[in-house]
């Protein structure tokens, strides 16, 4: 039976390769290890080598084509052996046909491959990964499809998942003191190579805004009573205890609102939606040259002081790049707060596979009508970004309504 030649991952980060030139042509004899083609990766032009002996019986991809890693680009087999020379778009659908002269052996014939939609390569949904790698990835919330496998046959193994999860940590050393910008030395711009963390941010966020159908819901919340509650609680805590911030109150309220609206506490998983019963809140933290979202686990079950202490501790270590991978992965929903920068209102980008994130603006005193009078109240504008594949407009709106009620009447959190 003929052997498929796949586009291989010739560099650790390669996701697709451009077939520059076939060095072997249909009909050429090939031996395992022979160079079949030159492939341009994200890094360099590399050689694609044969993994089987025989004849190059079918070339599926013309020169100059860019092909995702894992797709079939050619077939190696016995001279005269036939493969279904389906168009290059129909990846994975090509099945070897029994030679016409062979006696009919129905039991051995390949089941007819079901026609695969041209856009979806057959391999795209199946990830080869070791059981251990799958468990670690599941726990850490790592999407195995985004992990480059280094095991046999490109299989994802433990090392790959761990490397993926710690990439930002491992590659980026403690931030070096920023070199002062030259004061108008004449250069109109400076090219700064992307750091690994910046690359990851770029990849993750582009992956978010691109395929995810975002929509946004904004609401204005009266924070007067939350502010009063905060002042009272901080007085109670005295000088020794850490202070409770608005952010802590918002995290707690979001977590409790999610418990009531599980529909928003979910991960989009390509062929299914995972609704979480646990509530883990990712908290965006700005760090030197980037951002990271440490996770407050089971935030719905923690007290405000616990959330406050944990948030401060995680944020501190995040800034020093001392977070462990399990501390910044696995969130079920996120909160991003730019209130301290005097931003009234903004929209945050969803951190996939989560389905939602709330963006917190600054709390400002505003004149608002109350009955017939105009009063000054502390108000907060909050915007939720939703992944429409998981959360519909009304679903997001009822969640926000609960959140708003909790923040406007903090006692409601005790219900």
């Amino acid at each position, binding site marked *: 039976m003929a052997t498929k030649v796949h586009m291989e991952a010739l560099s650790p980060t390669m996701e697709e390769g451009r077939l520059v030139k076939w060095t072997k042509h249909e009909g050429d004899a090939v031996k395992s290890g022979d160079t079949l083609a030159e492939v341009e990766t994200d890094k360099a032009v590399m050689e694609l080598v044969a993994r089987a002996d025989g004849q190059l019986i079918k070339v599926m991809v013309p020169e100059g084509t860019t092909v995702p890693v894992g797709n079939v680009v050619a077939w190696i087999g016995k001279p005269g052996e036939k493969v279904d020379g389906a168009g290059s778009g129909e990846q994975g659908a090509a099945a070897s046909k029994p030679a016409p002269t062979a006696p009919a052996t129905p039991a051995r014939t390949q089941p007819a491959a079901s026609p695969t939609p041209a856009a979806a390569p057959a391999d795209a949904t199946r990830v080869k990964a*070791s*059981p*251990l790698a799958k468990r670690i990835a599941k*726990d850490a919330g790592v999407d195995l499809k985004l992990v480059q496998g280094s*095991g046999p046959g490109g299989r994802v193994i433990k090392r790959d998942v761990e490397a993926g999860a710690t990439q930002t940590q491992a590659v980026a050393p403690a931030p070096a003191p920023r070199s002062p910008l030259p004061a108008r030395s004449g250069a109109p711009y400076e090219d700064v190579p992307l750091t690994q963390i910046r690359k990851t941010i770029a990849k993750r966020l582009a992956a978010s805004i691109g395929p995810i159908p975002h929509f946004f819901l904004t609401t204005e919340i009266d924070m007067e009573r939350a502010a009063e509650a905060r002042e009272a609680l901080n007085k109670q805590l005295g000088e020794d205890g850490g202070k409770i911030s608005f952010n802590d109150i918002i995290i707690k309220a979001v977590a409790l609102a999610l418990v009531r609206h599980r529909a928003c506490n979910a991960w989009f998983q390509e062929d299914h939606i995972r609704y979480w019963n646990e509530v883990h809140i990712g908290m965006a933290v700005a760090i030197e040259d980037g951002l990271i979202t440490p996770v407050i686990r089971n935030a719905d079950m923690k007290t405000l002081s616990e959330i406050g202490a944990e948030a401060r501790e995680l944020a501190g270590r995040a800034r020093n790049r001392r977070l462990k991978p399990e501390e910044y992965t696995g969130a079920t929903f996120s909160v991003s707060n730019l209130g301290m920068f005097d931003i009234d209102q903004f929209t945050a980008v969803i951190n996939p596979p989560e389905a939602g994130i709330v963006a917190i603006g600054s709390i400002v005193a505003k004149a608002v009508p109350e009955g017939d009078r105009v009063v000054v109240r502390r108000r907060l504008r909050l915007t939720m970004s939703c992944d429409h594949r998981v959360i519909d407009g009304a679903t997001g709106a009822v969640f926000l309504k609960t959140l708003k009620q909790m923040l406007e009447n903090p006692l409601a959190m005790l219900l």
Partner: protein
Amino acid sequence: MASFDVIILGGGPAGYICAIRSAQLGLSAAVVEQDKLGGVCVNIGCIPTKALLHSAYIATLLQESKEFGVEASSVKTDYGVAMKRSRRVSDQNSKGVEFLMKKHKITVIKGTGVVQPGKKVKVGSDVHDAKQAVVIATGSRVKGIPQIGLEINKTTVISSDEALLLERVPDSLAIIGAGAVGMEFADIFHAFGVKITVIEALPRILPLEDAEASDTLSKSYRKRGIEVIAGAKVTKANVGKDKVVLDVEAGGEKKQVTAAAVLMAAGRAVNTENIGLKECGIQLTDRGFIKVDKNLLTTAAGYYAIGDVAGPPMLAHKGFREGAVVAEIIAGQKPHPIKYDNVPSVTYCHPEVASIGLTEEQCKEKKLDYVAGKFPFSANGRARGTGETEGFVKILRDKKYGEILGAHIVGAHASEMIHELAVARENEYTVEEIDLAIHAHPTMSEAIGEAALDSLGRVLHI
């Protein structure tokens, strides 16, 4: 002068496999061997000892056979006969390697090879040329401990080389070193009626194995009447014509051990002398092994080292794999890297001891969050049937993800059973996949499934 793609120094396990794999990949290969093909393993190591251990097993079995309803009266043992059989087994294996060399059209050059700069190998007065690479696989040899007066004299102070060729057994034997070699010979000679004393410097016998494994074996040996002294220091050795007197210090006590002979089963030295390494710029490590990188390349381009000379563990199967991998590297392939932390370790004494991965002590040292699952063969139906209820299976799993950190088997056929765990670890299966695989009943291997379950807190048969 002849020219080959690859010239390999040494026809032991690492060397001959390297030659075969090279030939499979279309390279012309030559093996330089001064003695018999197959090296220590085939001729004076793994293979003949396994033959002798089986003789020992039969002797022990017959002594206990009455209980099984088979009475063998006046069982006599003759080491000379067992030895000759073991030689035939070794010769068959060595001939087998010769056949494999012919089959793959590999040239075997008789003599001692010396490497020279420019990828050349001198054998006698001939100089051969390696077009692609020279591979050094010269192996290792036993060494005595001359510092305490125990230099191998081949009569009263012997090594395994002599022990394997004895016509008659001595009345008593002191074995220095309780690693795999020492424990296997203790088992063999005890079954042939020799009074045995095993002396080990480290605190436990089989010091590299899990403490529970060495304790179980230690108990088993003592029960059979083999004296085992661990944590012992030989302070003085008085080597006479027909006996050796050893002054031994252990646990603060002094003791004299008198034996007709001493078997040195401690330590091996690698064969790196007089083979031209220095002249080629091939450096050694602090411990005397040839310094190699990840791809087993030495400090000189074009010269590779594999097997015992390339570093521990000094095991034939580690050499096999290095031989195959180096051939693939030379042929321009990118082989799967060798996982040195997944090399099984086996001692073929009775009961057998086999292990892979970390010991429980290492898990503790590394502060790993682990759970130990254990299942004794005394609760295994098959083991009860054959009367081989000594020992256990122990699996150490990572608490969070179930990764198999290490596995230890003491018992009959442990050497055959360990591979289930080697496959599991190589493929990153967790204890749950071990359990999911249905184990045939009744088999000793069921104990592996049960140990996996025990680590998950759901053992069924205890």
